[in-house]
């Protein structure tokens, strides 16, 4: 993977575009963008600042071979999956999915911004779900609350106390999950086997070593 990071790109040549096509989920759509800008104009979060590049620009940067800027861009992490761009793109580019594909690829290359909230949530959610075979809500909540340390974790928990109680009363949250009780997955082993197989297939499709 490190050799990937060393890759050199020449401007306005196909190499980085090809890399994205091969490596990033839905990356083969990038070439179909016709630079109309409808996605950028439709994106509700893009206007709030903090976005390095709106989707249209990101796609042009890929074509222009701006590898470093693209992979370290924060844009794909800012996407909230509202699908506004997706439904509006006149070229039917599945923009939202391309954004996710880019995020995943940057993460895989170790280029994702550190302590990025979207990344952290996804990561935590994924680890939690795959470990237990289903989401353990109490543990997921805990790890999110305490991500910035004990003090702020307790503060957040106190703030949300009454809601948590309400959820418990409505049988929407089972406190036993904190100690290994509550809902469980019926065939945890089976799920793990399935996930392993999926990883293997995916790796084969993309021609790389299973992660």
């Amino acid at each position, binding site marked *: 993977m490190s050799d990937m990071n060393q890759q050199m790109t*020449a*401007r306005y040549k196909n190499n980085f575009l090809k890399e994205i096509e091969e490596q990033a989920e839905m990356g083969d759509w990038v070439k179909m963008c*016709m630079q109309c800008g409808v996605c950028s104009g439709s994106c509700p979060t893009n206007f709030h600042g903090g976005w390095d590049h709106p989707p*249209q620009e990101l796609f*042009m940067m890929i074509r*222009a071979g701006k590898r470093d800027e693209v992979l370290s861009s924060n844009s794909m992490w800012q996407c909230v999956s509202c699908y506004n761009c997706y439904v509006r793109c006149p070229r039917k580019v599945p923009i939202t999915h391309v954004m996710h594909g880019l995020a995943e690829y940057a993460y895989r290359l170790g280029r994702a911004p550190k302590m990025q909230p979207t990344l952290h949530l996804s990561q935590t959610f994924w680890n939690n779900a795959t470990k237990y075979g289903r989401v353990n809500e109490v543990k997921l909540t805990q790890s999110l609350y305490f991500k910035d340390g004990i003090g702020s974790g307790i503060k957040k928990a106190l703030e949300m106390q009454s809601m948590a109680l309400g959820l418990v009363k409505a049988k929407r949250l089972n406190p036993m999950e904190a100690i290994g009780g509550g809902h469980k997955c019926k065939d945890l082993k089976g799920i793990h086997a399935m996930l392993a197989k999926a990883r293997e297939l995916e790796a084969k499709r993309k021609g790389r070593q299973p992660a």
Partner: protein
Amino acid sequence: MAEMKTAAYICKGCELGTRLDAASLVKIATKEGKMNLVREHDFLCSADGVAMIKNDIASEGVTHVAICACSRRAKTEAFNFPTVAMSRGNLREGVIWIRPDTDAARETTQEMAEDYVRMACAEVKAMKVPEGNQNTGGVKTLLVVGGGISGMTAALEASKAGYKVVLVEKAGELGGMTAKLYKRIPTREPFKAPEDNGIADLVAQIEADANIKVYLNATLAKTSGAPGRFKVEIAVESGSVATEDVGAIVQATGFGLYDMNKLPHLGGGQANVVDQAGLEALARAANGGPIKRADGKEVKSVVFVQCAGQRDTTGEHLQYCSGHCCNTSIKQAMYFKDSNPDIDTVVLFTDLRTPGNGEDFYRSAQNKGVIFSKGVVSNVSASGGGCKVKFKDLILNEETETEADLVVLATGMVPTSGPDLDALSEATRAAEGGDEAAKEQVIQMKSKSVLNLDYRQGPDMPQFKHGFNDSHFICFPYETRRTAIYAAGPVRRPMDTVQAIEDATGAAMKAIQAMENAGLGKAAHPRAGDLSFPTARLEGCTQCKRCTVECPFGAIDEDEKRFPLFNESRCRRCGTCMGACPVRVISFENYSVNTVGAQIKAVDIPDEFSEKPRVLILACENDAYPALDMAGMNRYEYDAFVRVIPVRCLGSVNTIWITDALNSGYDGVMLMGCKHGEEYQCHFVKGSELGRYRMSKVYDTLKGMNLEEERLMDLEVAITDIETLPQKINDYAAKIVEMGMSPFKGL
């Protein structure tokens, strides 16, 4: 024709009978119109009404008919009596439909109707039945100049329609520019890949067609005559001259390439930089294999520079878009990608314009991995073994650059329409004045002539914008200013092969129509079918030459005695010559200084104290008059003090009408004609412009008469001005009221 017998018919249908006092109209037609026969009818356009008129013509010997009913534009099939002279009093669209049905308005509405009856009677008495001259020539062979895709298509289409064709090509083989293409932009589903250029097939069809006679290595040495009787001398390579009689001509001489040496900053003239035609040659040589540069190196990366020397705002290069070059670059990028998908192909554009089904083609190229980037190229220079392209990326908003083995410039199309006639006549004048350089220039310019027309007005067709022969993009694209000579393909406006094929088909059909009309003595567009034609009473002619110079269609030559010689089949019946003639000796049988003058005189002018001003409107029959009719159909009201007379074109308006009207007590005159100038809408191209120029001289006359300038008003009207036109009329009428009555009443 036998003695003149006049008849007026007053219709009472369409509420005319209830809104107007028909009995009084009958009285006016009889007493003032002095018509021999006056009848009213409840429904004149009905079978019964029409039969009544026909019967009067057949058994009463009626020769002149005034139909006082609806607009001359309505019920033309019912009121179609080709053997008699006919005028139409517009009581429906012109009177009751534009006036409110109120007691207060009744009097002025009736007065309006009465005037239109007077005018119809006066007009018809000044008219004759146009006989049409069938001896103007009936040759039905089409001459096609140019054997490219447009010319060959025109020839084949005409042949399929049953006409003989003479096809003249200056090169040694048919095919033109398209034959030089490795492949062409796709013309059919699924529009995803370049397709065969199609020339071999067309050439085979031409060769197998007994109707088509082909001259190769040939040019036109001389084209004389007129529609239906052109005589062309064809100079062939051997030096001999062949003569052919043809009825109409399609000029499909295509385009030339904009010289890329004029674009040094884009690398024009450098090694490893070609224009699109240059790339076609490389692709043909490669024939599907790896494309190699002139130095033999295989091209691994290529950059296409769109709009090279086109859509230029500095005035230095072509100002227009050639329309095909975006699709052409897409196609050429595919040549590379199809031979090897690893070749880097970048298209730098500001706007990618892909007419027709080019959008599918564009997508297909993206799919093949062609990179499209929005950018403006500032410089192309030699670098390493190839080129460095500097440009501004408009999406990323930065100055940047890339390298390529080969750069392709998308330069534009330049028309091959022959010399510019205005420049030529200027140079000729200077040459006649003894200017040696000008003499050389004249020879140079004449050598570029395509048609070598033996017309007094110059050897080729007058050019429009940027030297192309396009006459009117939307309304009458094929018409040129030389009757029965049609421009097709890129000589008319820049276009691709798909458009050229369509264009050539259209032009061939128009040419056929023109030949047929010429054989019958009928006019071509826009008065298609008109049998009248202008004649000059030469006893009165002062040989001022205004008619010969002003005729927008080059219809008038000079005879040996230097009198104007009208070529009827070249004439479009616009009347510009009639408007131009200072001694008013030019007239049509059914349209003359008298037919309009009589109408102007027929209007009843109330005296100074009546508070009823009269405004004369001379309205172009192509746009303004229909717009007025449509205003009527929509029941938009306008002032009751106006009297409208349709004219063939503002160009046909003789200033005498205006001065006579003002002299006889009209309070104002309004001219309604089409837009003129660069973006003209005039159906006779130059007519409205010439007419307006003449009118500008009338202001001096007004001053001499001590009349306000505002008594003459020139209004530009488009056929779509249906809603705004009534308001403009009302505003003008209000202004006239404010100005006060003309002092010339009752003099």
